[in-house]
């Protein structure tokens, strides 16, 4: 932006589908390991991706982005003065033949909104697949945070039925977060 405040405008590049062969270009051996397995506080979040008939989607990729356990980002646009995080914060996992993905990470800390409220611990999720012409965006929240979830501004903006689609469920020691692209229990997806 110049001193005059006039913004130059270039045409935004449009999105296209990743197609069925995304695994060639987008998978990494350490993609699912946001933290190495066995790290202090490591949790496993897994789930299945389903289409509108309830069939598993075997050619999707899930990407995650989140703060560290203290609620900090290793990013210069985290403006809090004492942010010194080196946390990778990013995970990616392609679904397998049963539509299953899994990541290993830590539970992020809560975040300030800047206007005195607090966001409950959450993980932002992008979903790419054949048949998705643009990425889908959703969020994973944690089932052991009923109070924080009850105060979370984004969850509060949703009807209860949609809110429930964003809260992972306990699966033994792990967490399960299924993603339903379409249908009666469709996951809440976001425009941002």
């Amino acid at each position, binding site marked *: *932006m110049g001193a005059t405040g006039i*913004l*130059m*405008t*270039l*045409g*935004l*590049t*449009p*999105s*296209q*589908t990743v*197609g*069925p*062969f995304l*695994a*060639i*270009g*987008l998978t*990494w051996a350490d993609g699912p390991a946001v933290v190495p397995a066995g790290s202090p506080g490591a949790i496993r979040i897994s789930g299945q991706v389903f289409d509108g*008939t309830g069939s598993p989607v075997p050619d999707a990729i899930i*990407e995650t*982005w*989140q*703060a560290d356990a203290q609620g900090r*980002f*290793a*990013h210069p*646009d*985290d*403006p809090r003065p004492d942010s010194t995080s080196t946390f*990778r*914060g990013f995970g990616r996992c392609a679904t397998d033949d049963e539509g299953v993905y899994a990541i290993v990470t830590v539970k992020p800390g809560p*975040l*300030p909104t*800047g206007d005195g409220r607090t*966001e409950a611990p*959450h993980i*932002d999720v*992008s979903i790419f*697949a*054949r*048949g*998705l*012409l*643009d990425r889908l965006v959703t*969020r994973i929240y944690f089932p052991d945070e009923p109070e924080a979830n009850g105060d979370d*501004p*984004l969850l509060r*903006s*949703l009807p209860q039925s*949609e809110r429930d689609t964003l809260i992972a469920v306990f699966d033994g020691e792990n967490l399960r977060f299924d993603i339903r692209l*379409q249908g009666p229990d*469709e*996951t*809440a*997806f*976001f*425009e*941002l």
Partner: protein
Amino acid sequence: MMPDLPTLPNYPLTRGVHPPLLSPDYGSTRLRAPLNGLRLMPQRLTEVTGPLLGEGRVAPGDHDLTRQHSGEALGQRIVVAGRVSDEHGRAIPNTLVEVWQPNAAGRYAHAWDQHPAPLDPNFTGVGRCLTDSEGRYRFITIRPGAYPWRNQPNAWRPAHIHFSLFGRAFTQRLVTQMYFPGDPLFVQDPIFTSIPDPAVRERLVCRWSPELTEPEQALGYEWDIVLRGSTTTPWEQPGS
């Protein structure tokens, strides 16, 4: 008590650019596009930050898809290069660019691609690089072939290279496809034509570049990529 936040960058949504998720001519959207509509996600800390994936993700030579095996890949060598910026023309330096594509015969090195075209043992079709300080990227590869698919009778995908970009914020993440100029297959391709505005479709078409063309070596194509722009930049934040 949590400290107040200084002003965060904001990445306004430019409408009318991306394809509608439900685009029935592209058959795979019918059972995969959400039908309940998208809710608004205000941009807060998680959305205005994003993974800054650096050097550890790119090995020397990852930008040259023609020399990843013992022999040279078959096909027409090409250079594909351009600049990654935001909508305000600001370069996006040091950002990861990932590409994948089929070989010159139009076949992907993937178990699910069974179309009867030859595989090339010297071509995997995956590349990575980081943009430089001016947001520039450059790949050396093989011009990909068109290939048939089963979306509609006698359907063929126009030649394309898949591109994945991160930018510097979760809001800027983009996966798309780059096409080649003058392809007669555009008109019958429901993925290309899923973009409603024909002028916007052209943003995915590279142009032949005499400057990027290397004599007796490779044809050059230029393709610039524009990610969402922010209304503030980090160095313009008050108090920083």
